[in-house]
């Protein structure tokens, strides 16, 4: 074969006519027990997704018991008044279902996925877990020990270690956000069944909870089904938790978490900024995508595709916690890993990319491609019931209207280059970024100090 192909070439084809697609609009209602329900029929999605949000935020954990929300979340699937822990797991799996639960700053989330044909069974188990969790002493004790065993695994993982250090650096020590979501060894050790039960009694009730049900609901009488299952969950009325303001110290500085012998440096560079309530959000999403949303964005164009320093560096905005009055915040960050010898040069290039962006702004072409991608991928991104349910639940959790996502796509399409530039430059100001590096301090400290991106301190992984 010759080097030059012998195939017949054709000009690049043009797009056909776009077929309409809109982010699904859920139907909203309330059960007799006060539980808010959002439902959404998605034809063809045979695996139904159910998300339940509980207004049990991490800052409601009692002092010294960080992690109790996590242990409670896990304990939901460890037995009820109907089933032992082993039986409950067996019944779920018999229904072909999975049930995950986790605790985060805004509250506790349970995610059930179950084939539509077995939705009744799955919803029944979920309702039992919420309505009458066993919280047996021996099971909670096991979950606590299991959690303690997990901690060293997380500490040994460079990206998780970096995230933990960034939170500790950014937020005041008095803020729950400065501390690990799932607790520390000292706090987790103090958790027992009594503490879990007390947290549940105080913060878990249908009146402050929301369930989102998405999937192919053909032939399913969802009202009847919900009435028999989640409708049987009882609890007193209550006001939702107040959301404390989020503050952070983003004085430009560098913290190296020493990991002697590491062949790469994990980097996480961040600060906090506006959440989805802010008018700038759409422009910030757009600008952040242009900076580091994909391997053809500005950061990877240099760090990966020109220099080969990394497998990929990304910039992103991730909502930490939102409030109805718009006083919430998002984490704005850049993350990735670079090989140890090139850590200095890679960081230098990264900050040069930021400075160049601040100096010259985005181009119209960059903006156009970003909008086409962010808006165009929507039908792909929301093909599954789980994806739709996740976003609908996020909206509720963040105190946003049910049509927020649909509106965001319109806003993105209407956002110009100048706005996107301003938003991303404001999101990532070079002198207001906390840089966490998990790597071999002996090799990377001097080159990083030479960059002048802030005072460098070294933390030892004790």
């Amino acid at each position, binding site marked *: 074969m010759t*080097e*030059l*192909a012998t195939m017949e*070439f*054709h000009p*690049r*084809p043009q*797009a*056909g006519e776009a*077929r309409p*697609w809109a982010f699904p609009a859920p139907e909203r209602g309330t059960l007799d027990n006060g539980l808010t329900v959002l439902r959404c029929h998605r*034809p*063809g*999605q*045979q695996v139904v997704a159910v998300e339940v949000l509980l207004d049990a935020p991490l800052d409601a954990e009692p002092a010294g018991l960080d992690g109790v929300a996590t242990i409670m979340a896990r304990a939901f699937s460890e037995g009820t008044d109907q089933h032992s822990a082993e039986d409950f797991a*067996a019944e779920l*799996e*018999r*229904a*072909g279902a999975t049930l995950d639960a*986790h605790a985060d700053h805004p509250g506790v989330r349970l995610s059930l996925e179950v084939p539509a044909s077995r939705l009744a069974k799955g919803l029944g188990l979920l309702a039992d877990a919420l309505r009458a969790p066993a919280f047996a002493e021996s099971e909670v004790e*096991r979950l606590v020990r*299991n959690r303690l*065993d997990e901690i*060293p695994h*997380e*500490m*040994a993982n460079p*990206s*998780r270690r970096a*995230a*933990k250090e960034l939170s500790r650096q950014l937020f005041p020590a008095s803020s729950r956000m400065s501390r*690990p979501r799932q*607790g*520390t060894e*000292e706090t987790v050790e103090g958790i027992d069944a009594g503490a879990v039960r007390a947290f549940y009694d105080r913060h878990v009730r249908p009146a402050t909870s929301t369930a989102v049900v998405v999937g192919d609901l053909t032939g399913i009488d969802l009202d009847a089904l919900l009435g028999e299952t989640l409708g049987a969950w009882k609890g007193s009325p209550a006001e939702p938790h107040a959301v404390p303001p989020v503050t952070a110290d983003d004085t430009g500085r560098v913290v190296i978490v020493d990991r002697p012998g590491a062949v*790469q440096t994990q980097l996480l560079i961040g600060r906090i900024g506006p959440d989805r309530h802010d008018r700038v959000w759409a422009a910030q999403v757009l600008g952040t995508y242009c900076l580091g949303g994909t*391997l*053809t964005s500005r950061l990877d164009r240099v760090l*990966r*595709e*020109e220099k080969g*320093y*990394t497998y*990929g560096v990304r910039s*992103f905005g*991730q909502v930490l916690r939102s409030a109805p009055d718009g006083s919430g915040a998002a*984490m704005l960050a850049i*993350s990735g*890993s670079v*090989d140890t010898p090139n850590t200095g040069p890679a960081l230098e290039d990264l900050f040069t990319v930021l400075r160049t962006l601040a100096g010259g702004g985005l181009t119209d072409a960059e903006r156009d*491609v970003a909008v*086409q*991608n962010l808006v165009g991928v*929507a*039908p*792909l991104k929301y*093909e*599954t019931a789980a994806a739709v349910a996740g976003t609908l639940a996020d909206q509720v959790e963040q105190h946003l209207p049910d049509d927020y996502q649909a509106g965001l796509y319109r806003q993105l399409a209407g956002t110009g280059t100048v706005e996107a530039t301003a938003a991303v430059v404001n999101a990532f100001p070079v002198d207001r970024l906390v840089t966490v590096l998990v790597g071999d301090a002996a090799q990377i400290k001097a080159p990083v100090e030479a960059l002048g991106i802030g005072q460098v301190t070294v933390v030892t992984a*004790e």
Partner: protein
Amino acid sequence: MPMGHTATAEAGSGGLTATEHRLSNGLRVVLSEDHLTPVAAVCLWYDVGSRHEVKGRTGLAHLFEHLMFQGSAQVQGNGHFELVQGAGGSLNGTTSFERTNYFETMPAHQLELALWLEADRMGSLLAALDDESMENQRDVVKNERRQRYDNVPYGTAFERLTALAYPEGHPYHHTPIGSMADLDAATLEDARAFFRTYYAPNNAVLSVVGDIDPVQTLAWIEKYFGSIASHDGKPAPRDGALPDVIGGQLREVVEEEVPARALMAAYRLPQDGTCACDAADLALTVLGGGESSRLYNRLVRRDRTAVAAGFGLLRLAGAPSLGWLDVKTSGDVEVPVVEAAIDEELARFAEEGPTAEEMERAQAQLEREWLDRLGTVAGRADELCRYAVLFGDPQLALTAVQRVLEVTPEEVRAIAEARLRPDNRAVLVYEPVAGGAQDADAQDADAAATDDTEEAAK
């Protein structure tokens, strides 16, 4: 001329159908319509993976996969990524032991662009391939290796266990990521030769699934791919056949700075595409899938000797599959304690087999996994290619779940008795070395979550 036939929908396929066609240059095409969402998935499997690599050039198939994103005759530089993403699509490629796949999911009205792009690189990659891309992607792949394997605890376990389970010289002895030395040694000429040998229409299957007009789609495929020449220079991969059982326990102890002791093992199992492989899948699910499995109940719930315990199945068509055991011990528990309990559970299972309830649970779990995989157009496109490339019949994808549901408890018991035994496994034990006790907190905000738009070595 294209020709085709349509299979009727089978139980468990959710009413899905697929048609098959073949271009005169040998390119096999599979189409499946689904008009529920205005999206279309394009998936292209090349019948080449790390098993085709030769000594001294491990990692070449995966490195080459990266080069496929570096431009072709009519596509500049990173144009493949830019054009697909700019059209509102998503894309990637992955390399495994047995195949290399490339895929785009597009808004339906942008389908033709994805076909044009795939055809351009299939027919004309070498017009653009140069030293600059080679050197750059070599560095990127080496950093991929560091990030995913070398810089994380237990990161090289998969590589070590594979090397134990398949003997020296076996095509599956090494994993797709390859060694640093071999990545350094690969030359531009190696990449060119690799393309000339394996990247031909008659060594590939193209599937298109979603909101498509099959007649129009086939016409586009004929237009863009039809003139690419076929060629037959591909050498057969080295034979992957091995005896049914290893015949003795292989063992390696790794002393490394890891957070806890671990026991991992690979059991030699039947090849993919057989009823015995489906039976093994069910056996592993009963024993170690999810939180109601026998090993989880025994080690994590009752004995409380493990943090996590589970079994996975690596299905392989060209060599024995592997049953993958992964146990991280709790606290100060020693490996022999966990190992004895596992052997006891496996022996008991080989004797008594699964209960009716365990069968029901395992089958329900595997059925849901299939529904998940077939629930997206991209998942469906990938499975159609998989069955076409590995087993010669894409229709098998639509009936796979049915075959899992037909397996009997006795078949599950029998495969466990025959294969899940100490003399049929390679064992990897991790013993932590003193690196200093670590600070006791952690953060689960996975702020460094990896993006899904990078080429991946599976």
